[in-house]
């Protein structure tokens, strides 16, 4: 086993759960996530030689995963989803700023997935990283926009989701 192969397998082993989660978040259908997963592995292999250690391996892997998903979405434009586990009890507080009592658990189950899938491609990509508990600084390093801009975007997306979940009209 040569050095590149060894490094590749180590990175994949260390980040398998992360890559799997990202693949599942953005997969257009349940069957497609494995295609994204494989595409991410291929792009990790292709990018290995350009890895200079300027960012952490985690950030580097996230960049490849998100960029691959955006490119994958490009091939199947508008089919990109943001799939979440609606049975996760914390999902609402992670996606919407407050624990608004107007939004009932039952309504969450019904509407959350629909509302998430109506987000734009970039908003889905950002919220996928939010779901993975990444900080604004980490998201800014992955996406390439400033940290305040990331915070503004996340706030807007959450606000938009909150309004829609309450049955209001998004601006």
């Amino acid at each position, binding site marked *: 086993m040569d050095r590149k192969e060894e490094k*590749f397998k180590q990175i994949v082993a260390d980040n398998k759960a992360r890559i799997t989660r990202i693949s599942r978040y953005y997969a257009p259908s349940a069957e497609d996530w494995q295609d994204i997963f494989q595409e991410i592995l291929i792009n990790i*292999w292709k990018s290995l030689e350009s890895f200079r250690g300027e960012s952490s391996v985690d950030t580097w892997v996230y960049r490849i995963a998100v960029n691959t998903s955006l490119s994958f979405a490009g091939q199947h434009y508008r089919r990109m989803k943001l799939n979440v586990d609606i049975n996760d009890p914390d999902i609402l507080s992670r996606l919407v700023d407050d624990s608004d009592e107007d939004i009932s658990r039952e309504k969450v189950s019904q509407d959350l997935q629909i509302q998430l899938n109506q987000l734009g*491609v970039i908003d889905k990509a950002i919220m996928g990283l939010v779901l993975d508990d990444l900080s604004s600084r980490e998201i800014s390093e992955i996406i390439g926009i400033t940290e305040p801009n990331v915070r503004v975007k996340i706030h807007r997306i959450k606000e938009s989701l909150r309004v829609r979940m309450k049955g209001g009209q998004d601006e």
Partner: protein
Amino acid sequence: MAESDHNIDLDSLVTRLKGEDSRNLRMMRNMKWLFYSMIVVYTLLLIVNPDRELQLHHRISGLCYVLGFTVFAVLFRKYYIDYKSIDYSVSSVEMLSKAVKRHRFTFVYFLYALPALLLVDAGITISEYNSLVSVEPMNRILMVQAFLIPVFAISGLIGYMIWRKRQKPLHDQAQQLLNELTGS
């Protein structure tokens, strides 16, 4: 879904990727040698060939072809490398900006190819000028241009149509995502 339910065989994937790496390397090497060989063959045949029947205009025309092919070969090699080396490990904004740049259709591409076109044009004109001896000198040049300019124009149009079908959708999608990200 459980995390373990993906069935990607990492070993066979790595074998496939290593195969692709060596294929790409081989293709680059072959392209490089093909390119060098063509320059050497054309240089020997048309420029330094000691054949007494070869006149100066043959040699000048040959030199124009060699230089034209060289410019084309360098351009193709550059585009091949650009397409093969898409870096997914940069930030999304950078990746999308590069994609927009890579897939756009600009006048600059024409300017890059112009020296090669002019050299090939000059090569053909010099060669035909000396074979169409029964025609007036100015008309010889115009006859060659009347053939070459439509050929170049049709080639350019075909290139544009291929870009419009294959590259434009990718360009527009990357631009749209970039606008969404940067808020412009």
